[in-house]
């Protein structure tokens, strides 16, 4: 997951690197996602998560398309 200034730059990158366009999120949305995804990661009680729990986190920030399904 790489950081760019604009979607135009991402299209340029995909052309150069032969990458899929995939999906593009604003950095602010990625911060929202990172807080849900990573906050418990060093809690002593953390025991991983199921795919359903992971998809639930995506849906909490509005990521509900098939792209965000495991």
């Amino acid at each position: 997951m790489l950081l760019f200034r604009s979607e135009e730059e991402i299209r340029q990158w995909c052309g150069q690197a032969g990458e899929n366009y995939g999906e593009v999120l604003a950095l602010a949305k990625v911060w929202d996602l990172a807080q849900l995804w990573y906050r418990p990661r060093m809690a002593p009680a953390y025991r991983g998560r199921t795919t359903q729990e992971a998809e639930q986190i995506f849906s909490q920030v509005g990521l509900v398309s098939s792209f965000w399904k495991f």
Partner: protein
Amino acid sequence: MTEAIELTDQDWRIRLFIYQFFVDNERPPSIQETAGQFSLSENSALEAYRRLNQRHQIFLAPETGQILMAHPLSALPTLYRVAVNGRNLWANCAWDSLGIPAMLDADVEIEARHPLSDEVIHYAVKNRELVGPPHRVHFALPARRWYDDLVHT
């Protein structure tokens, strides 16, 4: 997120030790360091590493068994350097660069490199608020393919 491999309580304690060591020392522990911490043989420590790897809790170099990643942390330099509490940590990707302040609940300064121009981009998290440019993060692969090739992802 794979659930086929059963981890023991000790495996989970080893996992937590790996993360804490990684944050404190800016690198993951070696197999020998983990074995010493838990009074295990190196072979037993390596077996625990491999179980954690199979459960996607850490990611190992296949040949050596050394830890390459414990998300969001990278053992190798990347495009994303995160300064936190007087230490410098490498994040695996742009998402993980924000995973470090989330995981540590700490203020950070992030120095990213632009993939096309190598230009330096600065952003930060202060008091749980993102401070930075309105940039975009590219997710090339759908979630179901993230574990096919993690270095690529």
